[in-house]
């Protein structure tokens, strides 16, 4: 838009920022000042997200306690309203809700994590798509189609588990390949390609399944979504994780010194080890203390194991590889990336393939968890995934965002779902609240950015 007549034009596929031009001046506010402390804005954002998640969890845990007082709107009588406020304050400080709340109880927490796994896996793929300045609106339909195909293969065609899973995931991968190619090599904006995909793939599965819900025949298939790995493996993983935390923290400090930077002192270093280690131990403890049957403890649900693997893989890919570095560069400044010799088209194609692959994985978890493939499975999942990324601090213009943030975003989204369902909030109200929270999260972020 603001390109001058004399400026050379560079050959490359379109990105979101071309369609919605960003004012150049909106760049660069990297540090936020709070009470005299200058904190890198990205770090602050990460803390804010985690804090928001904790607040949401505490709120729902409190609200789901059966002993918690009811709720009265002020227009139902002002005096009643104030009485209610008073009884809430009293109840809150009685701390009875910590024991009686349902939300953070082992059983529900285990469920919550399992619910998060589908959105989380999709969010990791979506993050990489958005990093490059693209978007994928088709993932919900792809999840429906891939899950349906896997179910059809094992049910109607009588295939075994491995071929059925391969068929489902392979379909999703091919779709990613096709959509990526249309975007990267034919220059059709991703928004359009995947909007078309959103409609088309849903149509395909409706046609293939003839509108029927296909039950899962293989127990092994179901157990991907419904089983647990057992407490022992949980504790082994916890030990490995804690060791990894210690090792990375120490080696990062060493690296910082080697690069001529100041490394954090002993106390901050200890905090950086102890806090995440406690979170890991607490997490495993929660998973393991869910008693499925008297005397039988669950351990980590298999979908959560898959999500952890995808998260670690995604974090490694985005942070520790040339591939990941290029994704950030492409989204941050496609022209500079191209002139630096980065093959933008190939990378965009690759990200769409990855998204397809992850949508395939998510579809398997989804289908296995439900126990059957319905043709309208996965609807609106693309929006959950995009919302997770955005709440997690990803810029839709590309170039900014982390896997960690996207996972926190996914946790926030699924916590809202889970908590509101526990409170029997009507589905329509749930949608309104989720929508409002998404807009508010981005609004706050924008307001914070403008100040700089």
């Amino acid at each position, binding site marked *: 838009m603001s390109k001058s*007549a004399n400026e050379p034009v560079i050959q490359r596929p379109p990105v979101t920022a071309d369609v919605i031009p960003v004012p150049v001046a909106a760049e660069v506010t990297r540090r936020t000042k709070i009470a005299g402390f200058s904190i890198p804005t990205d770090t602050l954002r990460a803390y804010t997200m985690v804090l928001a998640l904790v607040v949401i969890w505490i709120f729902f845990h409190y609200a789901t306690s059966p002993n918690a007082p009811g709720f009265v709107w002020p227009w139902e009588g002002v005096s009643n309203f104030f009485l209610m406020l008073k009884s809430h304050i009293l109840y809150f400080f009685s701390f009875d809700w910590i024991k009686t709340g349902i939300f953070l109880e082992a059983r529900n927490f285990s469920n919550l994590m399992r619910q998060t796994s589908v959105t989380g896996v999709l969010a990791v793929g979506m993050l990489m798509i958005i990093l490059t300045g693209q978007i994928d609106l088709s993932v919900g339909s792809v999840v429906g189609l891939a899950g349906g195909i896997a179910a059809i293969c094992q049910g109607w065609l009588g295939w075994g588990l491995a071929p059925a899973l391969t068929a489902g995931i392979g379909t999703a991968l091919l779709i990613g390949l096709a959509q990526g190619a249309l975007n990267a090599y034919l220059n059709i904006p991703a928004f359009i390609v995947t909007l078309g995909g959103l409609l088309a793939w849903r149509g395909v599965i409706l046609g293939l399944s003839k509108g029927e819900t296909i039950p899962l025949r293989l127990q092994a298939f179901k157990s991907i979504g419904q089983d647990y790995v057992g407490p022992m493996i949980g504790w082994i993983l916890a030990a490995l994780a804690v060791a990894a935390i210690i090792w990375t923290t120490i080696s990062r400090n060493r690296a910082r010194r080697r690069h001529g930077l100041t490394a954090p002192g002993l106390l901050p270093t200890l905090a950086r080890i102890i806090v995440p280690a406690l979170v890991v131990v607490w997490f495993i403890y929660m998973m393991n203390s869910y008693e499925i049957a008297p005397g039988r403890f669950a351990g980590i649900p298999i979908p959560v194991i898959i999500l952890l693997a995808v998260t670690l893989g995604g974090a490694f890919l985005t942070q520790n590889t040339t591939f990941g570095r290029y994704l950030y560069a492409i989204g941050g400044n496609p022209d500079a990336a191209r*002139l*630096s010799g980065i093959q933008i088209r190939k990378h965009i194609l690759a990200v769409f393939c990855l998204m397809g692959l992850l949508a395939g994985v998510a579809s398997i978890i989804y289908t296995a968890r439900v126990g059957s493939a319905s043709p309208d499975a996965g609807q609106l999942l693309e929006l959950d995934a995009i919302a997770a990324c955005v709440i997690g601090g990803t810029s839709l213009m590309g170039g900014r965002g982390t896997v960690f943030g996207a996972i926190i975003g996914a946790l926030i989204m699924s916590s809202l779902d889970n908590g509101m369902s526990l409170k029997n909030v009507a589905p329509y109200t749930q949608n309104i609240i989720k929508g409002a929270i998404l807009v508010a999260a981005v609004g706050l972020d924008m307001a914070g950015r403008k100040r700089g």
Partner: protein
Amino acid sequence: MTTNEQRAPFLEMREITKTFPGVRALDGVTFDLQRGELHALVGENGAGKSTLMKVLGGVYPFGSYGGEIRIEGAEQRFNGVREAEAAGIAVIYQELSLVKDLSVGENIFLGREPRRFGIIRWEELYRRAQALLDDLRLPIEPHTPIRNLGIGQQQLVEIAKALSHDARILVLDEPTAALTDTEVETLFRILQQLRARGVGMIYISHKLEEVFRMSDRITVLRDGRTVGTDVTKNWDERSVIARMVGREVGDIFPEFDHPHGDVAFEVRRMSVEDPNVTGKMLVKEVSLSVRRGEVLGIAGLMGAGRSDLLMAIFGAHAGRTSGEIWIEGRRVRINSPRAAIQHGLGFVTEDRKRFGLVLDQTILNNMTLAGLPRISGRFVTNVDAEAAAGNRAMKELRVKANSIFTIAGTLSGGNQQKVVLAKWLLTNPRVLFLDEPTRGIDVGAKQEIYAQINRLAEQGLAIVLVSSELPEVLGLSDRVLVLHEGRVTGEFTRTSATPENVMACATGQEQRLEVRG
């Protein structure tokens, strides 16, 4: 001087100063304009003409610059473009501001459509547009979509739009850059008409011929200062050029003596077509060669095709290109920047914010971007190796920042430019292209970059330096090539390249190809 009272200028800009971080773009410029006068503003690229007009046009609001603006003696404090427009100032920029999918009439009255009860009165709108166009004797149908008009006609619509605002001061920034000869004549006829009506006009142009033909008065800007203002008949082309370039060349440029080796890089008959306009050539049959250790300067004015040439060589131009590229005696094909990098070319692009840096990323990530597999690892990155390379580059180029992990967008222009330079040096190039390497950075940083260019040439790198700052080209190059409208119009050795000679070729006044056989 006694008539000063009677002829108080219509527009007066006094002691205008405007600074950007690290650069003083305007340094106490004084400028005035009479009713019905066409006052030409000339100067090299970066002399401050456009900045001055942006101050006048309200782009830089009151308070962001120093000095005062008066119209008919009354001080003006514009807080935005709208207020400047209301005061009768219309600026026609090089990049046109018309909405391509709306009609001529809709564009002329955009935002000010005649309406009744909030409903647009289309007939009234088109009647008034027609009247306006008739008045200017423009054969344009007001219902035509802008998209269907040529760039020249669009410019004329832009002028009609300005007049519909009752503009009393019209600023034309390089109005003829994209026009054909007949369109230029139409434009000049209209300017004469406006002059007769008492509209004051500020005319910015590189084309001195036009300036001498049309203007009543000429003001020359250099380095953000007025260095001469007089009625046109007291100037001639030589004296204008002398004022434009007249500064001490050489004082900030280091002495050098590059030992020249074999021909490292050669381009034969390179042509580039405009990707948006079929048949329009941006670069026409340009040939050039550089030896190891040699600095080849390419001079030329804005729009001469310098950047297009470099983009095309680097395989990044969207337009169709033809021509041959030879590296160290072998013909190579370069169809992407990746191929160019693999063949040992490096390209410090102009406009570091648009083409050079990922502003969100750290200095280190930017420095290693082009050479990442070489520096870090083919797939898994090695932060230690990167940091070592980054720290070395940082020290060598004297980038001032807290650490290599500082975000590139927070740096000053000069340091950003050093980061871009480091990025390309880390690809280990044999030929380095530098496009406007010192635009918008302060003198200290400039000098450091000049020193680097010399150091690199001494190490045997072949360098192609494009700059619109003439002293820079003259002070650093062993040989100078001049482009004008996509064609080579001059080639000089270091000794024969005087500012006057080069400027004469760059403005299309002369052709001198003395070095060529």
